[in-house]
């Protein structure tokens, strides 16, 4: 499987990808930092979904608060990206080409997922560092103290934010892979994924708050945010692991059993 991961990195870690990651991270850092720091609430908020408080921003985890809040809106982007990447492989014949060189189907799919996730992990790290650096620059103009950001607690909070965001990204990636494997068509898989995780879940949870705890998209969003009022981080982690495990199982069973005809 390491050969598949290496090949995936060979494909993805290229100047164009690096430039895209840097540009995307800069854009993300700018929008997240300016939006979160400039709209910091002086009163308490229910969760990161409503933004950040000044107290939270001046706390040890304040340096990556903008990153964590901004990242909660990126899950869907990760989802559609994984659907597009994997579905195109399955329908375009490159998956078949890889199997002719490495006829272990599960290793190929898992290796590809791992390779893309490694790149995503790098991109998330760059985005977090960029957001932290920009927050340090912008905070003084908003009268936000930054002295505790570089403390041990601050670094721990940053690592925790990184882990929860990456966990959420991995969950979205697994769901995206499952849809790509099931439908083997990027337009179809994207359509289904978009309809489910976009309008359907968000419309339903407006009138059925339990949806925040049971819908996969809402669970992963809660995970990325580090927990919400509706779903704490502990339960979000367990539920996300459960859902991702089922999605991974479905994808792997199909991959193992289905003929490769594209």
């Amino acid at each position: 499987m390491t050969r598949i991961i290496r090949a995936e990195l060979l494909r993805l870690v290229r100047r164009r990808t690096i430039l895209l990651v840097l540009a995307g991270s800069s854009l993300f850092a700018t929008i997240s930092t300016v939006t979160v720091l400039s709209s910091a609430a002086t009163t308490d908020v229910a969760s990161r979904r409503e933004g950040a408080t000044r107290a939270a921003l001046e706390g040890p985890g304040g340096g990556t608060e903008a990153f964590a809040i901004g990242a909660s809106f990126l899950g869907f982007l990760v989802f559609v990206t994984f659907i597009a990447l994997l579905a195109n492989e399955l329908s375009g014949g490159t998956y078949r080409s890889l199997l002719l060189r490495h006829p272990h189907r599960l290793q190929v799919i898992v290796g590809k997922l791992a390779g893309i996730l490694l790149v995503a992990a790098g991109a998330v790290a760059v985005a977090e560092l960029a957001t932290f650096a920009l927050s340090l620059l912008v905070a003084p103009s908003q009268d936000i103290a930054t002295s505790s950001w570089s403390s041990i607690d601050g670094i721990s909070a940053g690592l925790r934010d990184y882990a929860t965001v990456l966990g959420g990204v991995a969950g979205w990636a697994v769901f995206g892979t499952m849809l790509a494997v099931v439908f083997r068509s990027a337009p179809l898989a994207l359509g289904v994924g978009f309809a489910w995780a976009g309008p359907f879940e968000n419309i339903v949870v407006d009138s059925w708050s339990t949806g925040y705890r049971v819908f996969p998209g809402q669970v992963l969003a809660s995970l990325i945010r580090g927990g919400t009022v509706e779903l704490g981080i502990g339960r979000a982690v367990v539920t996300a692991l459960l859902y991702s495990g089922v999605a991974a199982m479905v994808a792997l069973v199909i991959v193992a059993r289905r003929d490769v005809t594209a």
Partner: protein
Amino acid sequence: MTTTALSVSGLTKRYGDRTAVDDLDIEVPSGVVAGFVGPNGAGKTTTMAMLLGLVRPTSGTGTVLGRSIAEPAAYLSEVGALIESPAFYPSLSGAENLRLLATVGGHDPTPIPSLLDRVGLLGRGDDRYRSYSLGMKQRLGIAAALLGDPALLVLDEPANGLDPQGVREMRALIGDLRGSGRTVLVSSHDLSELEQVCDWLVLIDTGRSLYQGPTSDLLDGDAHRLAIAASRPDDHRSLREVLVHHGHDVQLDGARLVVHTVGSEDVSALAAAVNQVAFGAGIVLVELSPQRSSLEDRYLTMVQGGAR
């Protein structure tokens, strides 16, 4: 080393009610260029996909390079394949795509420039795959199949989309591969192309085998016709009449006459007899040549006759 490169027995693949490959028996010896011939939907690609572990047989057994087709991982490192259309990453160059596949297969990437040269892509190896013409994509597919210097090459319609010059070059390339001692299984709709390059043929129709064996056995054994032409075209009518009078089976074929052997009559004996009759009638022949059936003729005869 095994003397049989691949063999299948009772190989069957069903998709619901449709049978794509039906109780197929094939054996291809090592070291030959074997043509795999059949009309659209005959089951060629499905058979190749089963040999390559992409499609699971409904029933039947087989071996590739001495290993069971139930365990493709045991032999695929020694097999190079181009099946269906070539598929590469559009944003990578041809050389980068080959390096990626070499990484996946655990092959040495050093020969990639020579492989690109061999398929006529050396000057375009650094261009992105998306800029390639269909013919160039086919060539890159062949180069990818040659990674790792495989003992068996499985090529599905390798000349598909190539212009006449490209077809000729592909034929030469496949001919070169024969010289290196490896086995090549190549499917194609262009029967004349296969006739020239293959020394072994496997003919199938509706998923069943019609013929398998040396190309020469299929073609040489069928030289039962003689094409003749008189020096003066005006003599063709009288030549035909006199030949028919002597009991020959004669047909007009364009600007020539075609005389068929009767029963077990040898075509050389027929040539002598026809020449004698023409001479006796005062007609000078400028052509007197045994006509071997082309692969296309034989193939169509077998398909239409449902030969087994």
